[in-house]
């Protein structure tokens, strides 16, 4: 047992890490049972912490980026793990759906891309756009039109992308995939889009109606809402900059106000969340979307029309 006075006298040295390991252990043990010394120790240690701060030198501006990147590389942020896992899940599900295909299944007609092989070629082409943005090697599609070989090439590309994004900066700017106007967004958004498109095409190839997990529906809706103002400005300048609200109910639903935080909106559109994501994928025409409109009907119509142009088809 060490006397209180001995420990108390040692606290300055302890606060500066200036005593032996044995002494430090004795101090710690005493602090656990002596509130007075514990308070004193906190006070001295705080003062010690400030001691070297007698001259201010801001860190170089570029250091922030490299510190945050180094941290992410050691321990991927939770939100990023969620997004990469969501994409990986969609890749695995589509791969499983393709695995069981007969030669006849591969040639099943598709209204947009000819047949299932065309759908997969289109999907792989859009994946390759993001891979190229990230500087990852492109995996070429076999020219033979052999279904299983196409599946292997698409899968290799997707796996390369998953490996490549694991350590990438989720906030870095990339172009989204798609024909024509390719908005510049964060890699985070691009990955939501890849998961979304993979999910959409799994439906196209006739897999049992795939139900996306609610969080994914929510992310897809959020991305669509984020892309809408610029798309509206491009297609329908008369409606650009107007304030509106989207209220999606059901699994993955939520409420979005554009511009964010606008106190008053000109129209509120209500719809089912999954239905809305189908609309954004251009898999259902605006006329068939059950929805409610409170406010300016013309604005609502323009928003829903432009929403169908957000996907990659």
């Amino acid at each position, binding site marked *: 047992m060490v006397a209180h006075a001995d420990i108390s006298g040692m606290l300055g*040295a302890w606060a500066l890490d200036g005593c*032996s390991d044995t002494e430090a252990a004795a101090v710690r043990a005493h602090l656990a049972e002596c509130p007075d010394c514990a308070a004193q120790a906190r*006070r001295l240690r705080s003062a010690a912490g400030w001691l070297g701060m007698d001259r*201010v030198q801001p860190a170089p501006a570029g250091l922030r980026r490299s510190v945050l990147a180094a941290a992410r590389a050691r321990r991927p942020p*939770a939100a*990023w793990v969620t997004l990469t896992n969501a994409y990986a899940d969609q890749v695995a599900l589509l791969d499983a759906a393709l695995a069981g295909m007969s030669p006849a299944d591969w040639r099943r007609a598709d209204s947009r891309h000819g047949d299932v092989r065309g759908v997969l070629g289109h999907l792989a082409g859009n994946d390759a756009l993001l891979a190229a943005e990230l500087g990852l090697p492109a995996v070429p599609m076999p020219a033979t039109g052999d279904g299983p070989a196409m599946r292997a090439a698409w899968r290799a590309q997707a796996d390369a992308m998953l490996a490549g994004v694991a350590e990438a900066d989720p906030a870095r700017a990339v172009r989204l995939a798609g024909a024509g106007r390719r908005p510049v967004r964060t890699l985070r958004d691009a990955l939501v889009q890849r998961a979304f498109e993979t999910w959409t095409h799994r439906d196209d190839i006739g897999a049992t109606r795939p139900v996306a997990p609610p969080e994914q529906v929510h992310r897809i809706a959020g991305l669509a809402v984020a892309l809408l103002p610029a798309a509206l400005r491009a297609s329908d300048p008369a409606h650009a900059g107007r304030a509106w609200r989207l209220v999606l109910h059901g699994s993955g639903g939520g409420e979005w106000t554009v511009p964010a935080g606008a106190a008053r909106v000109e129209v509120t559109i209500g719809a089912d969340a999954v239905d809305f994501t189908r609309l954004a994928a251009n898999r259902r025409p605006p006329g068939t979307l059950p929805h409610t409109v409170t406010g300016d009907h013309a604005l609502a119509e323009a928003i829903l029309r432009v929403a169908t142009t957000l996907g990659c088809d």
Partner: protein
Amino acid sequence: MPGDRADDVRLRERLLAGDDDALAEAYDRWSTLVYSLAMRVTADHAAAEDVTQDVFVHLWQHPDRYDPDRGALRSWLCLLARSRALDWLRRRRAQDRCHTAAAAIAPTPAEVDDGILCQTEAKVIREAVASLPDGQREAVLLAYYRGRTYREVAQDLGIPEGTAKWRLRAALSRLADSLADEDILER
């Protein structure tokens, strides 16, 4: 005020949950402090950058090592920065026995940039350190910048070990009072 205990607890929880925005906030709030400390000990830009990176990566990887009951997160980061900077200094000395002290031990005149955070704190600390009795100042600066133990401080200054311990405690206590007077530390 940012940096109070409830704030530290919340930030720690977010870090534990893997929220990288919380790390960015911590960096924005304390990187000047951490980098300044590291520069002051190492007097080497590259080393100070490495130390700053180590400190924040450590916080991100091991937020559980910080115990809010034992003090402010800011203090924890300061002490971590100093300890990493001293490690660098020791490695450097081991490589180069003739290496002369990189950092000046006496408080140096400030090279102040206007409009920078921590400027007030730096001034208070300079004045508080300058106003310490010579014996206390020598002891505390040896311990702080050179990482000397109280026994080594006693040897360096040719004083009894008990006196060295007492000087370290008295110096930090006076410093704490000065910082509390300026509302930099709680009383």
